[in-house]
């Protein structure tokens, strides 16, 4: 039998009202069916309505949500930007960020202050145009900063310049590429550090040092010149006095004594002038050493021979160095003799009648140590620090000042140091003093 309807839903509804799809419904069943249909229709309409409304609601919610999210993101972005900006602005360095086309993306306050241009004007400008209006000169041009990578020298694109701005301030400018993690360069960030004060301080220091050096040199040169000039009239003073002393015509004792006084004072003055000249030459850097291999014992003997008249007159015995084997030293023979002469004559002057002055030489590492040993009055510990100062002469226990210029030790120390050597002193009051100079072997 053919069903009344092929429609499954209608068949289902027919069964619900007690009818069947295989026979025509009764009028009651038909009414029931219509009622059911009407109810179903109503229900479905209601559901659709609910659905529509719920869709509408959720759509509104989502919109709201979207708006909220959008707002929140915007807030966060604004907040982050504010933090970023505050960070940039709190930097003591001027900062400028440019994109790959060298258009300025961002600058900080400090940069605006440095360039004296308003921030608004700085943004979106070309870096070169900006440089043209703000930079007076580039002192060093684009020197690439080398960065050490795995022990190899390599440049990472960091550049360093020293520039001068229009207001005269000097800026250390370091710029580095900004890269994404995959290495693509997206921008370049520049840091500007004001080093005007540093440079200024450095410059002033340099100028002060130069001025001091020039003054010192001028002083030394003046001393050298004046010493030179003083020697000429002294030549006549000493020479004429000596000449008169050589005269065959007898002089009365007083005349001879006075003449000797003139000649001796002239020699003292000359010694002083020579020492001042030597010191001045050393300080002006004009003293040159004629370095050769020098036999130490020969120079010691020359020094002892030169000083023997003074030693004899003072009753001090000179004990020459035993001729042990010592290597030659690298020295200026004339100056080494001067060094030893100064030390030996000092030893004699500060040693009482009956005392002894000895000279010893021995190899000491890569130097020859030459010791001048006396049995003299000794030097108080407090006086040791004054020893090498110019014009500071120690007095004898009697209160007398020994002969000499007061420059001898200052000069001796300088000369020893010019040889690359050292000078040391050991002393005990009433026992004696030992000066030891050490001159490099050569």
């Amino acid at each position: 039998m053919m069903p009344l309807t092929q429609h499954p839903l209608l068949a289902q509804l027919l069964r619900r009202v007690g009818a069947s799809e295989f026979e025509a419904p009764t009028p009651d069943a038909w009414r029931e069916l219509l009622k059911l249909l009407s109810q179903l229709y109503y229900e479905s309409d209601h559901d659709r309505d609910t659905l529509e409304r719920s869709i509408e609601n959720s759509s509104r919610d989502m919109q709201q949500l979207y708006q909220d999210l959008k707002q929140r993101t915007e807030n966060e972005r604004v907040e982050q930007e504010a933090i970023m900006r505050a960070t940039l602005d709190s930097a003591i360095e001027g900062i400028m960020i440019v994109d790959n086309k060298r258009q300025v993306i961002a600058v900080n306050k400090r940069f605006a202050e440095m360039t004296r241009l308003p921030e608004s004007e700085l943004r979106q400008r070309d870096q070169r145009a900006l440089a043209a209006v703000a930079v007076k000169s580039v002192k060093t041009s684009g020197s690439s900063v080398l960065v050490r990578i795995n022990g190899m020298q390599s440049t990472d694109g960091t550049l360093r310049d020293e520039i001068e701005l229009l207001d005269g301030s000097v800026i250390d400018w370091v710029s580095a590429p900004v890269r994404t993690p995959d290495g693509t360069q997206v921008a370049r960030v520049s840091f500007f550090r004001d080093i005007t004060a540093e440079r200024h301080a450095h410059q002033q220091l340099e100028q002060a040092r130069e001025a001091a050096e020039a003054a010192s040199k001028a002083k030394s040169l003046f001393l050298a010149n004046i010493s030179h000039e003083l020697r000429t009239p002294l030549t006549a003073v000493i020479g004429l006095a000596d000449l008169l002393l050589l005269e065959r015509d007898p002089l009365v004792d007083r005349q001879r004594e006075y003449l000797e006084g003139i000649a001796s004072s002239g020699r003292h003055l000359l010694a002083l002038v020579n020492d001042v000249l030597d010191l001045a030459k050393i300080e002006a850097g004009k003293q040159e050493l004629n370095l050769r291999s020098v036999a130490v014992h020969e120079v010691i003997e020359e020094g002892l021979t030169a000083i023997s008249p003074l030693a004899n007159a003072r009753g001090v015995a000179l004990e020459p160095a035993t001729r042990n084997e010592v290597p030659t030293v690298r020295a200026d023979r004339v100056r080494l003799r001067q060094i030893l002469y100064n030390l030996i004559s000092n030893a004699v002057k500060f040693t009482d009648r009956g005392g002894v002055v000895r000279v010893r030489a021995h190899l000491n590492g890569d130097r020859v140590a030459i010791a001048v040993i006396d049995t003299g009055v000794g030097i108080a510990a407090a006086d040791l620090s004054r020893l090498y100062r110019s014009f500071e002469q120690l007095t004898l226990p009697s209160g007398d000042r020994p002969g000499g210029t007061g420059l001898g030790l200052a000069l001796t120390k300088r000369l020893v140091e010019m040889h690359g050597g050292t000078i040391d002193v050991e002393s005990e009051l009433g026992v004696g003093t030992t000066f030891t100079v050490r001159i490099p072997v050569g």
Partner: protein
Amino acid sequence: MARILVVEDDLWSRRLVFELLVLRGHDVLCAAGVSDGRAQLDSVRFDAVLLDINIPGGGGELLLQEIREYNTVIPVIAFTASAMAGDRERFLAEGFTGHLSKPIDVKSFGETVESYLRPPA
């Protein structure tokens, strides 16, 4: 005995050198500067010249140059108060025969000057 020209601008140094050389029996003439010395050299034949460097009229080196233009053998001795290291070498390189530095030793001065008068060995 030799005829010696002393060119020295300091009066008493000049006088001292004059006396010392005369004492040794030499014939000594003096000049105080370059032009003075030049005039003497033009009119008298000398055996030696003692020449101060720091003299008016261009300095001793100028006068030496003039002398060396016509006479390469006459002993010309630099006589100077300068005692810088290397001076002697410089003077010899410039054509001086020798160098005497001030102040002089009265006792040995004459002999030292005479050592330059002997013909070179």
